[in-house]
């Protein structure tokens, strides 16, 4: 292998032709086709599996949501009947309302805390910033199951910290599993799991702010708070939009935490506590696969629409 081989002999692939302007027209045609299959060859393995585990299930559940298993006549096409039935289903709406409430309260709290932590770590006013960063991020690595079991024990009145505190106060004030507190208890677990992850997204965006901006601010005599509002927060806008979208998706799909806590509070967490739990129980306790697929499709569309709106609003503000 030497450098003696000329470009003409090897044939310059299209990607170079595309990125470097003014390559001889003669050289473009044939190599372009070559690069076509080369690029595709890199992407193909991913695409094949992607079709099997992403596209196919979506298509299959659309199909299921349009059919119904009937006592007489077997599997029959019913059009949008499953959707109409779902929209008239009080259990679905109860779960939907619950995750919406969860979303409106938990997501702002979690992202607010993450933002404060990221700005604090980036401010260079903390001792041991490395320790802060890793300690706050650490819960993200803990499996949801372990997180819920752990918090479940801590909440518990058997040997949890809640019980310890109640004993100490001689009261029963702290009741994380009570009907009115259960959503807060779940919100706390989710916040604990993901605050560090969101902090890291924000922190990464803060780290790439060009130094010149800070220097200019310093020359203009801007104080630390002015730097935060004038430079850091605007620079974080994209990261905040992304984190919000991920959090909305997570809230609508809430499943692990309530489902695992159910063993500890079976009377309060119902089988339709969240839409995703409803879909799961329709499938695995009720064998109602068509109804279950309908829930999955409806929630998927809701999530996509809301994520899209958030993204539009986020980018519109950016233009201003």
């Amino acid at each position: 292998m030497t450098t003696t081989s000329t470009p003409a002999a090897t044939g310059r692939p299209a990607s170079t032709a595309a990125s470097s302007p003014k390559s001889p027209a003669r050289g473009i045609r044939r190599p372009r086709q070559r690069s076509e299959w080369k690029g595709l060859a890199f992407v193909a393995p991913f695409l094949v599996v992607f079709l099997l585990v992403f596209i196919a299930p979506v298509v299959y559940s659309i199909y299921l949501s349009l059919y119904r298993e009937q006592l007489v006549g077997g599997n029959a096409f019913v059009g949008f009947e499953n959707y109409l039935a779902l929209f008239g289903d009080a259990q679905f709406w109860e779960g939907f309302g619950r995750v919406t409430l969860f979303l409106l309260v938990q997501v702002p709290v979690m992202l607010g805390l993450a933002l404060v932590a990221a700005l604090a770590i980036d401010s260079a006013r903390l001792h041991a910033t490395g320790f802060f960063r890793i300690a706050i991020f650490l819960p993200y690595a803990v499996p949801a199951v372990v997180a819920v079991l752990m918090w479940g024990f801590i909440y518990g009145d058997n040997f949890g910290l809640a019980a310890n505190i109640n004993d100490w106060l001689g009261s029963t004030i702290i009741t994380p599993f009570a009907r009115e507190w259960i959503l807060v208890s779940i919100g706390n677990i989710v916040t604990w799991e993901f605050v560090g992850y969101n902090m890291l997204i924000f922190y990464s965006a803060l780290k790439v702010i060009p130094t010149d901006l800070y220097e200019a601010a310093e020359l203009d005599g801007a104080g630390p708070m002015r730097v935060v509002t004038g430079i850091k927060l605007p620079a974080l806008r994209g990261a905040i939009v992304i984190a919000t979208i991920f959090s909305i998706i997570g809230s609508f799909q809430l499943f692990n935490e309530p489902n695992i806590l159910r063993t500890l509070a079976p009377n309060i967490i119902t089988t339709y506590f969240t839409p995703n739990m409803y879909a799961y129980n329709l499938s695995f306790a009720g064998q109602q696969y068509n109804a279950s697929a309908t829930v999955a499709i409806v929630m998927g569309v809701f999530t996509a629409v809301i994520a899209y709106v958030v993204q539009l609003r986020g980018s519109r503000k950016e233009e201003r």
Partner: protein
Amino acid sequence: MSTLTEVMTTTDAAGGRGASGTRSRRRGAYRPKYSSPLRPRKSVAFTLLMGIFVIYSLVPLVWLLINATKTQAGLFSSFGLWFDDDFVLFQNIWETLTYKDGIFLRWFGNTLLYVVVGAGGATLLATLAGYGLAKFRFTGRKAVFAVVLGAIAVPGTALAVPTFLMFSQLGLTNTPWAIIIPSLISPFGLYLIWVYAVDSVPTELLEAARMDGAGEFRTFFTISIRLLAPGIVTVLLFTVVATWNNYFLPLIMLSDPTWYPLTVGLNQWSAQATGVAAQPIYNLVITGSLLTIVPIVVAFLGLQRFWQSGLSAGSVKQ
């Protein structure tokens, strides 16, 4: 190989990333690339205030560690955040590992299998595809990218039920494949590699390799993969966490406990405490939980240099 070496050295000198490297060289003085130049004094009071975050993050883990040293009776009789008189951590570990003929070790092995094949495969596929999208033009490239970006918005749990129904038609449920195949796709991983490859693998370098007559795959496996390393480690860590922590998918796909991963197994142990024939084994659930998080926490701490640089590169594009 001369052209190639030349380009590679240039890249190394520039630190792989364009703009800021040139800027600091032009000024001729050393400047830390991305840190705030307003060097305020460190504040003890502020550090203590922010310490609340650390306490919140670490208290449950400390609770787990302390309570893994207690007997089942000790759990009930002692204060949650301090040790009991009996220190039985090692007995608990031994009991966890040997309970029911060592089913915990079996679950541990299953988890390892799912992580190595699933997360390893996901990283490989995402790396190849992200690189292909970043460095080649081909018909349908934009369509592929749009669909994959859209897929980031679709979480695994939304697809789990339909995937289960489909896999049960194919006879794949209750086999390791039911866990491994869906784990192989990481749209976020692909996105990260795509963003990373655009900046860190210079097109001139690839041209030089082509002029030297190296095939595309050879170039990829000998040169590009090294430049992509921080991005790859980041994606690997996130896919490892995702598969190690996977709960919903195995929960619905598997009914045979011998194929359970740790997460589903632990929850089954926990559920054993309630119901008709309740046999609580709280000490084993707690010790098992501790053993489950140790490997993943060690991996994160050990590799933090890599994933932190990979993540910040990923956010450049936002």
